């Protein structure tokens, strides 16, 4: 009984806007004689859109209406209607994410993007999504190695480092192929980002808008940019300029990187021979690509081919953001979907304490959470126990109800997310203890951390599992 889910990925980046549709196949992998274990068995990209330039009305504002038109056209070309799309993600990435009207764009797309498609942004998450799209995560798991994926786009380089399939570090740099753009005849600088201005000045070059620029200078700037990437992955010592070019945070560099993969638009110019017009897009993308190919990253590290280059982020968004819960969970379909629910997780120390004290611990955390986020109701998360008695479950449920008392009257379901396999019995117990008067969503086999947000979609595979998107902001702060 294979079931497929259609997932959409829409990436509105600094330079390009893209869309993909993926088919995610679910199958019960347990024997007929066991409790079901539904797993994602296959992910296949079934439609890749053209790569569009992101429409802007000004330097800092996205043209939301034009984005909608692009998306509508691509839906039509793919022969997909919004109601067919069951999950997925819209992400606004790169420099664009810092632009002011991101939320307007998202609301413009909301009706189009199906029931469950959600909005996320933030450089760490983008790097992680791109790393998954480029296959760096899966490869690190397969090889049992540490792999850093560098997603080099028009405006930023997002780096995610995976060890045995887990994200261990992220970084974002203002290094991109379109941070300097040229005039129509490519003799002058038409645009130079502030950070690039700093970098060129440190080299004694002037790249302000309107200044004439030579071929040699473009090569030199590209080499310096490639040099910053050498620094960030640790093949040469870090300089002050690296700190300047870092957007949010640098890599920790306290672990060994075994392999490097490249994705993003610039990656195409690294790995393939980009002959032809170097100035096709009036920017330094191809120069940067060539400079990276000649850099010490290639001599000092082993570079692996990535599964996707310019489409890594959008494929990651379409195919790799959705996960599924465990197969024995508790939920009411009419209470779903829920989106952007903040996670409130108990620490290991909290969990080590006796269950009798949990109620107070949870209540304190909820109170503290409410001080910061007055109007939001958090989902309670904890690891749980592999070996818990029925009495233990009863104690646990009453502690949760006691602890969540102050948010129990909110007009949203009570949401509990656990790692260990106990969501069905815990959900049933919570419902029973609440006299079946409150909607309870209790899911398991999902790992979340404090600061994450979670989306939960409607039931799949005959209502056994729910699709889950965990939006990690952890590495960003």
């Amino acid at each position, binding site marked *: 009984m294979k079931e497929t889910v259609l997932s959409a990925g829409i990436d509105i980046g600094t330079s390009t806007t893209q869309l993909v549709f993926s088919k995610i196949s679910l199958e019960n992998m347990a024997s007929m004689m066991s409790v079901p274990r539904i797993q994602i068995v296959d992910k296949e990209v079934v439609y890749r859109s053209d790569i569009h330039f992101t429409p802007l009305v000004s330097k800092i504002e996205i043209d939301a209406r034009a984005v909608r038109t692009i998306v509508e056209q691509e839906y039509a070309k793919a022969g997909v209607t919004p109601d067919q799309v069951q999950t997925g993600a819209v992400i606004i990435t790169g420099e664009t994410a810092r632009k002011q009207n991101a939320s307007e764009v998202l609301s413009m797309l909301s009706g189009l993007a199906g029931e469950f498609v959600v909005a996320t942004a933030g450089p760490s998450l983008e790097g992680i999504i791109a790393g998954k799209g480029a296959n760096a995560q899966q490869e690190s798991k397969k090889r049992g190695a540490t792999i850093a994926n560098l997603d080099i786009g028009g405006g930023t380089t997002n780096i995610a480092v995976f060890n045995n399939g887990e994200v261990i570090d992220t970084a974002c740099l203002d290094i991109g192929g379109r941070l300097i753009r040229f005039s129509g005849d490519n003799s002058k600088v038409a645009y130079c980002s502030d950070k690039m201005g700093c970098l060129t000045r440190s080299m004694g070059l002037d790249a302000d808008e309107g200044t004439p620029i030579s071929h040699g200078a473009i090569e030199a700037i590209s080499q310096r940019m490639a040099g910053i990437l050498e620094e960030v992955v640790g093949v040469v010592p870090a300089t002050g300029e690296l700190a300047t070019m870092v957007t949010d945070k640098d890599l920790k560099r306290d672990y060994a990187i075994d392999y490097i993969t490249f994705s993003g638009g610039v990656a195409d110019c690294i790995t393939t021979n980009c002959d032809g017009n170097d100035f096709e897009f009036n920017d330094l993308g191809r120069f940067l690509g060539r400079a990276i190919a000649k850099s010490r990253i290639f001599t000092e590290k082993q570079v692996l081919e990535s599964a996707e280059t310019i489409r890594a982020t959008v494929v990651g968004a379409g195919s790799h953001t959705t996960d599924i819960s465990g197969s024995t969970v508790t939920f009411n379909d009419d209470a779903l979907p829920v989106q952007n629910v903040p996670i409130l997780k108990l620490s290991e120390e909290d969990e080590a304490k006796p269950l009798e004290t949990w109620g107070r611990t949870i209540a304190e955390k909820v109170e503290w959470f409410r001080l910061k986020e007055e109007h939001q109701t958090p989902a309670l998360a904890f690891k749980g126990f592999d070996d818990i008695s029925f009495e233990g479950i009863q104690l646990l449920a009453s502690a949760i109800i006691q602890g969540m008392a102050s948010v129990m009257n909110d007009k949203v379901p009570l949401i509990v997310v656990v790692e260990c396999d106990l969501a069905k019995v815990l959900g*049933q117990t919570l419902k029973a203890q609440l006299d079946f008067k409150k909607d309870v969503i209790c899911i398991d086999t999902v790992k979340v951390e404090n600061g994450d947000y979670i989306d939960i979609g409607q039931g799949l595979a005959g209502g056994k599992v729910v699709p889950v998107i965990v939006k990690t902001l952890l590495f960003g702060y």
Partner: protein
Amino acid sequence: MISEDKIKNIIAEVLGSMATGDQASPSQASPAAEACEELCDLTAVDLKKELQVPEPANREAYLKMKATTPARIGIWRAGPRPLTRSLLRFRADHAVAQDAVFSNVSDEFVESMGMFQITSCCKDKDHFLTRPDLGRKIDDETIATLKEKCKQSPRVQVYIADGLSSTAIETNAKDAYSSILQGLKGHGIETGTPFFLKYGRVPAMDVISEVLTPEVTVLLIGERPGLATGESMSCYMAYKASTTMPEANRTVISNIHKGGTPAVEAGAHIADIVKTMLEQKASGLDLKL
């Protein structure tokens, strides 16, 4: 000819090198192994977390793989043979399995469950193990007891049998049973009078079902233990079970133990399956889950 002195020297040299070898070993031994220096229960060590390969290229990846299976991987070797530790563990696990089969579910346990006890047509454990046919039957006297003590024609009859692992029952039956009852109550489904069947095999549920005529019969029974665990319990269910129904009418949930599906979670799942059975009036292969 080697002189006596020379031999002495060689022995001293060998002993010296052995001593340094001994010094090196504790740092290589896993923490689990260190905790077991004294005579201790080998089966208390979690195999999924114990890696005996002395210098793995990637310990973390190896342990991740081990965490997914109770199979004996990463146990290293001495020449072509297993390490003494592995061999002893193998035999210890086998002993656990034997204990699970040959021990009895205690009367105290049955009492603590608030259940009364009946026995199949087997006289003792040996009889039970050698005569599977008798473990499937109950005599007329027992049938009379059932009729006298149990509610007739409940919607759901739940009972427990020892089967091939008393350990499984003593470890898991209570939590699973409580969880099933809570789930069924939540669905508004009434249950009959529970009891414990000693020396019981699965098909005894057919005989019992014909006596008590519930719509759905639910049996919690100890599974034949293996080397991974002796604590595994199964749940057999059937809609309007009878001695003439085909085996294919049974629905089974196996592998209920802390390393498989936890008993409380399995109970909650079983309650939902029973609800589906009542809705579809079917079980086994006829049931669409």
